[in-house]
């Protein structure tokens, strides 16, 4: 793979975002229209208790990515009510057009006490081209923890291929502490589910991407088809000390597959890495690949989990 970095294209601190958000544009995910692109991302707003809630928003770009056409106004999907799985934020949000509707698969966050959070996957549906979404059901998730996927079910990425919905997502395998009195940190891995209707999913508790690090967390898989193969990008990091130590921070990983079932990881083929001195010098995370007018693009976040925005790269040679 060879990627040409096109640089950072959106900085939230330069805009008046809705819901009073000023920082973070995490996990950019594109929906391609005839004449423009709608890029969803998650910003953060501070609440009374000093904690943050992730709120999905979007920005519309022209197809040369040099002009912003529109920013979302107000919430595009409401956070959950008291006790619901997405009460404390939605991050990320993955969009899929299907039969005239736009499906948003969401990672809902709910705060716990012995550990910081739990996550489950929700579904919201838009009938106005993704401007606003209405939640499916009565406030609950479509995918939550199960006996063999015991924690933190999130980061959905859905594609409709050959008459079947495929979801790549993550689930938590365990929580652990770096030391006896250290803060509990989560461990999660990438998995795959299938569905006939996009609502009811069949999954098997198996992880599909081999670990590279001893204490590896894998997140946000994204898949595209090119050159007769399926390609997956994702991000991975050390479970511990990953926020401030660039060695342990998120990097992009790569795997390929012929059959959507077995994946061969080979990060050396990813064709993209951090750039010294740039906005993505210490971290690269939350990739989203998409096709637009015959080109494959990659959206991603750089340093500090996207605090100062997201950037774009374009696929050159396979």
């Amino acid at each position, binding site marked *: 793979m060879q990627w040409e970095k096109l640089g950072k294209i959106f900085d939230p601190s330069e805009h008046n975002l809705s819901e009073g958000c000023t920082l973070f544009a995490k996990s950019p995910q594109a929906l391609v229209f005839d004449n423009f692109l709608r890029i969803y991302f998650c910003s953060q707003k501070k609440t009374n208790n000093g904690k943050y809630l992730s709120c999905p928003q979007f920005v519309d770009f022209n197809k040369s990515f040099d002009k912003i056409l529109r920013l979302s106004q107000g919430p595009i999907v409401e956070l959950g009510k008291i006790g619901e799985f997405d009460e404390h934020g939605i991050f990320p949000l993955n969009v899929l057009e299907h039969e005239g509707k736009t499906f948003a698969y969401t990672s809902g966050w709910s705060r716990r006490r012995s550990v910081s959070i*739990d996550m489950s996957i929700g579904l919201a549906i838009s009938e106005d081209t993704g401007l606003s979404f209405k939640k499916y059901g009565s406030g609950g998730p479509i995918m939550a923890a199960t006996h063999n996927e*015991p924690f933190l079910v999130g980061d959905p990425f859905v594609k409709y291929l050959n008459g079947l919905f495929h979801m790549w997502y993550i689930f938590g395998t365990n929580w652990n502490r770096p030391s006896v009195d250290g803060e509990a940190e989560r461990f999660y891995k990438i998995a795959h589910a299938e569905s006939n209707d996009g609502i009811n999913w069949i999954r098997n508790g198996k992880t599909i991407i081999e670990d590279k690090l001893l204490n590896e967390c894998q997140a946000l898989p994204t898949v595209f088809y090119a050159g007769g193969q399926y390609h997956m990008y994702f991000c991975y990091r050390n479970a511990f000390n990953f926020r401030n130590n660039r060695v342990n921070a998120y990097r992009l990983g790569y795997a390929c597959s012929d059959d959507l079932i077995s994946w061969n990881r080979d990060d050396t083929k990813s064709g993209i890495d951090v750039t010294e001195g740039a906005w993505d010098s210490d971290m690269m995370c939350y990739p989203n690949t998409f096709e637009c007018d015959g080109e494959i693009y990659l959206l991603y976040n750089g340093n500090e989990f996207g605090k100062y925005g997201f950037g774009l790269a374009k696929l050159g040679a396979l």
Partner: protein
Amino acid sequence: MGFKWQKLGLVFDPTHYENRPEWMVNFAQAPNVIIFDDYVRVFFCCRPAPDENKEFVSYCAFVDLDRKNLFSVINISTQPVLSLGGLGSFDEFGTYPVSVIRDGADIFAIYGGWARCESVPFNISLGLARSKDDGVSFQKYGVGPVLSHSPDEPFIVTSPKIRRYDATWYLAYTAGRRWILGDDGRPEIIYKLRIATSTDGINWSKRNKDIVESKLGEDEAQACPDIFYTNGKYHMFFCYRHGLDFRENKNRSYRIGYASSSDLLSWQRDDSMVDIDVSEDGWDSEMVAYPTVFELDGIVYMLYAGNGNGRTGFGLAKLEGDGK
């Protein structure tokens, strides 16, 4: 018409036993039975002393009652039959309630696992476990829950009652509808009875609808849908309460309700069929809750929890009418 229950009195309250273990300081909640040749093993849930924040965990335990005299406790479990889950698990802070059933030589259990949350006090999902030693110890099926939250059951999936009729497993349970705030700002859960079916006891298909209508309005909370088959009909004894002010106010606390069904899926509620109510005084003077009905040697019995939802232990009643 209807079921006439004769109260026989308190059977077990752990506080009456001086040498009880530290994890069984008080409470004997949500009894369920497995019948053995010489004794009836009653599984229930109990609590150790609260932690520094006055919060409890809950353990599953059992007592054996002499089959010839159900007021004679002949054995008390020396260890919790189920361990609490590890860091971050759905059952890290409690295993309550538990429902048990024989499956061949094993005992199969479905239990509520408790996690502690920030905006609400807790969340609950159902875990599964199996015992190969008559219920002395159970091994969990996986680290996570087997029945959890879904689009129309957003939180608090609990109060399981597992049954098997012909080749189908039935799980009656309760699912959270909404959290409402009391005058003190404490969130209280409103939950409604639901049912799911399974061919293997592991993969469940939810019916996704309330199975018993509410008598106290939309804020009625319903729990413990205990199903008993007799005289060609399925009978459900459950408990229900008001949405708020149900802890201290005896007029708003748990009472026992009744519904019947011919197919386990559609139920007709008729509380006039059950005459068991709070007593004038004593251990069940403020509430009657969490019933379980079983037949033993030709007699139909009900075990149920009393005041404080089992804080004062559980007691026994005997069916006089035949319910026809």
